[in-house]
C-alpha cells in the first residue's frame, strides 16, 4: 500500500489539535449511568448536553459560598456574586471574540434572545423617534429560512402580525442545504432583518453565511444568526462571522439550563428600546416616567439567573481548556464515521447533507417506514438515547415529506463505540418491526 504524503505548506492532519476522549468522559458523572441494563449511550446532545464536574462544582460552590443578589449590594457577598456574574460575561465575550464585554446580554435561552430582538423591533415601530433600522411597517420584509427551529420562526411571524411587515424565507434543497439561488430577490431594499440558523438542529447543515452577509450589507438590513447549535461545537468569532446579532444557549454547551446569550453590536444594542421592564434595567424612575440603563443591563430586567451565568462561565473555561478546534475536529471525524456506519443500515434514509462537509455531528434519518417513536423506544431499551419527533423544526419535516425523524447527535464526549451501539440498535429495531 502506498501512502500519499501531504505536501509541506498544506494543512497536515497531525497538526490538528486532539484530546483524550476517555479523560473527557471521566469529567461527566452522568456518563457512568446504566439505562435499562445497558451502558448509557447518549446521542442527544443537540437537545441538551451533559455537564462536567467542573461546571457542577462551580454551580454548587456559588450557592454554598457566594450567594447574594447582583449589582445592588455593598456587602461582601453581593460584591463576590456581582464579580462572578460579570466575570462570566467577560469569559463569554472572550469565547466568541466580542469586541466589548457590554455586547453580551444574558438571557434565559436562545428563544428569549431572539424574542428580545423581535420585540425591540416591535417597540421601535411604535415610536416615531426610534432608530429607523428597527422600525417596521407594511411593505418591510423579514427574511428567515425553511430550516429554522420554531424559536426562529414564531417570534418573526408574531412580529410580522404586529407590524404588518411581510415574512419571507429561503427554501431548502433536496440535500438539506440552504437554497441561496433567490438571494438577490429575497434580500432586497425592503428587507429590515435576516434571521438565519447557523447550524440546523435537525439537518446538521452548517450554513455558509458570507454571500448572505454581503447582500445584507448591500441593502442595509441587519443579520441575526441563531448559533445555538454552532457555538457549542466549533470556534465562533463574531468579528469573523460579521453578523449583527448572534444568539446561543448555555445548556447545549456543557452549561446549565436557564441561561442564554444575546450578542449584539454595541451601536445596535444602544439603539434598541427596552423589552422587559423592571429592576436593574433602569437609569432613573419617577412616577411620570423612566429612563433606561445602557446595554447589557437594559435587557436584563429583574434578578438574573446568577448561578447559571457563573456556571456557564465555568463551561466556557472547560471547553476552552480542551479547545474548540479540537472539539470541532473530533466531531468531524465522528460525523464521517457515523455517516458511513448509518449508510450500511438497510432502508435508512438520511435527511440533510450525506457528506461530512458543511455539516455538524447531528444526523436525522428515517428507518424504512418504522415510526421514529418506535425507533426511539427500541433504542432506549438498549440504553441508546436519541431524539425522535419534529425537533421543533416542523417545516423541515414537511419539506422532506415526513411527520417526524430520528436524530442522533454528537458532542465532545461521544465515541465511535457509541455510534456502533446505535447501528446495532437499529438492527434490533428492524427485527422488531420486520
Amino acid at each position, binding site marked *: 500500500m502506498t501512502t500519499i504524503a501531504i505536501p509541506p505548506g498544506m494543512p497536515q492532519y497531525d497538526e490538528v489539535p486532539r484530546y483524550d476522549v476517555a479523560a473527557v468522559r471521566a469529567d461527566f458523572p452522568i456518563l457512568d449511568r446504566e439505562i435499562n441494563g445497558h451502558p448509557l449511550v447518549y446521542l442527544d446532545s443537540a437537545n441538551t448536553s451533559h455537564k462536567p464536574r467542573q461546571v457542577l462544582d462551580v454551580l454548587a460552590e456559588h450557592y454554598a459560598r457566594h450567594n447574594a443578589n447582583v449589582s445592588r449590594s455593598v456587602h461582601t457577598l453581593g460584591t463576590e456574586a456581582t464579580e462572578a456574574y460579570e466575570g462570566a460575561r467577560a469569559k463569554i465575550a472572550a469565547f466568541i471574540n466580542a469586541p466589548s464585554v457590554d455586547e453580551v446580554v444574558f438571557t434565559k435561552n436562545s428563544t428569549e434572545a431572539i424574542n428580545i430582538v423581535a420585540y425591540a423591533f416591535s417597540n421601535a415601530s411604535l415610536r416615531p423617534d426610534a432608530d429607523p433600522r428597527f422600525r417596521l411597517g407594511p411593505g418591510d420584509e423579514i427574511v428567515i429560512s425553511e430550516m429554522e427551529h420554531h424559536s426562529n420562526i414564531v417570534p418573526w411571524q408574531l412580529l410580522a402580525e404586529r407590524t404588518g411587515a411581510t415574512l419571507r424565507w429561503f427554501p431548502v434543497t433536496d440535500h438539506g442545504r440552504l437554497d441561496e439561488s433567490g438571494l438577490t430577490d429575497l434580500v432586497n431594499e425592503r428587507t429590515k432583518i435576516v434571521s438565519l440558523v447557523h447550524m440546523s438542529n435537525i439537518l446538521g447543515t452548517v450554513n455558509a453565511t458570507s454571500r448572505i452577509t454581503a447582500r445584507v450589507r448591500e441593502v442595509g438590513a441587519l443579520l441575526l444568526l441563531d448559533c445555538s447549535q454552532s457555538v457549542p461545537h466549533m470556534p465562533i468569532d463574531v468579528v469573523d462571522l460579521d453578523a449583527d446579532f448572534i444568539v446561543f444557549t448555555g445548556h447545549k454547551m456543557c452549561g446549565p439550563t436557564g441561561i442564554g446569550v444575546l450578542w449584539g453590536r454595541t451601536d445596535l444594542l444602544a439603539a434598541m428600546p427596552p423589552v422587559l421592564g423592571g429592576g436593574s434595567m433602569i437609569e432613573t424612575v419617577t412616577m411620570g416616567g423612566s429612563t433606561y440603563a445602557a446595554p447589557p443591563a437594559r435587557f436584563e430586567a429583574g434578578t438574573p439567573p446568577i448561578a447559571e451565568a457563573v456556571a456557564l462561565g465555568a463551561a466556557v473555561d472547560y471547553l476552552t481548556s480542551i479547545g474548540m478546534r479540537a472539539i470541532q475536529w473530533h466531531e468531524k471525524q465522528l460525523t464521517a464515521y457515523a455517516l458511513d456506519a448509518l449508510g450500511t443500515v438497510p432502508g435508512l434514509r438520511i435527511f440533510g447533507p450525506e457528506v461530512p462537509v458543511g455539516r455538524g455531528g447531528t444526523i436525522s434519518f428515517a428507518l424504512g417506514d418504522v*415510526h*421514529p*417513536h*418506535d425507533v426511539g423506544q*427500541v433504542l432506549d*431499551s438498549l440504553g441508546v438515547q436519541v431524539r425522535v*419527533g419534529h425537533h421543533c423544526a416542523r417545516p423541515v419535516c414537511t419539506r422532506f415529506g415526513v*411527520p*417526524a425523524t430520528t436524530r442522533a447527535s454528537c458532542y465532545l464526549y461521544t465515541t465511535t463505540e457509541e455510534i456502533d451501539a446505535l447501528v446495532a440498535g437499529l438492527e434490533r429495531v428492524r427485527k*422488531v418491526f420486520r
Partner: protein
Amino acid sequence: MQLESLYQEIILDHYKHPHGRGLRDAADPADQVGEAHHVNPTCGDEVTVRVASDGETLHDVSYDGMGCSISQASASVLHELLTGRGAAEAFEVHEAFLALMSGRGQVTPDEDVLGDGVAFEGVARYPARVKCALLPWMAFKDAAARAGVGASPTEVKA
C-alpha cells in the same frame, strides 16, 4: 425495561395488519355521522375517527391516520372493540381503556371488556407513550359527540 411488555405481539399485529382502516361513509343514510381529527403536537401523529350512529348503536367506527405503532394499533383496536356496539356499552369500554392507560401499570385490565385492548397494559408504564395510545380514543370521544352520541363521563388525567 422489557421491550416485549410494550410491543406485545397483539399490538404489532394490529399495527402491521390494521383492522377496518380507512374512513367510510355511513351505510345507512339515516345515520348521523361525526368526525374528529386529533394531533399529537410533540410527535406529529395524526388520526381521524369517524362515527356513524343512529343515536343508539355505533354502526361504524372508521379511522385513518399516520403515526407510531402504538397510536395506529390503538386505532385498529378501537375500531374492532366499538363498531356495532350500543352507545352505553361503547362508553363503558372507552372508560375502561382510559382507566387502564392512566393507571401507570397498576390497573389489571378485564379481557372481557377490553379484548385486544388488554395488550396496552404495558404501554401504561411508559408515560411518554400513553398519549400515543389515547390519541384515537380521544378523537373517538369527540367524533361520537358530533354524531349525537353521549360523551364519556370520565376525563383522563394525562
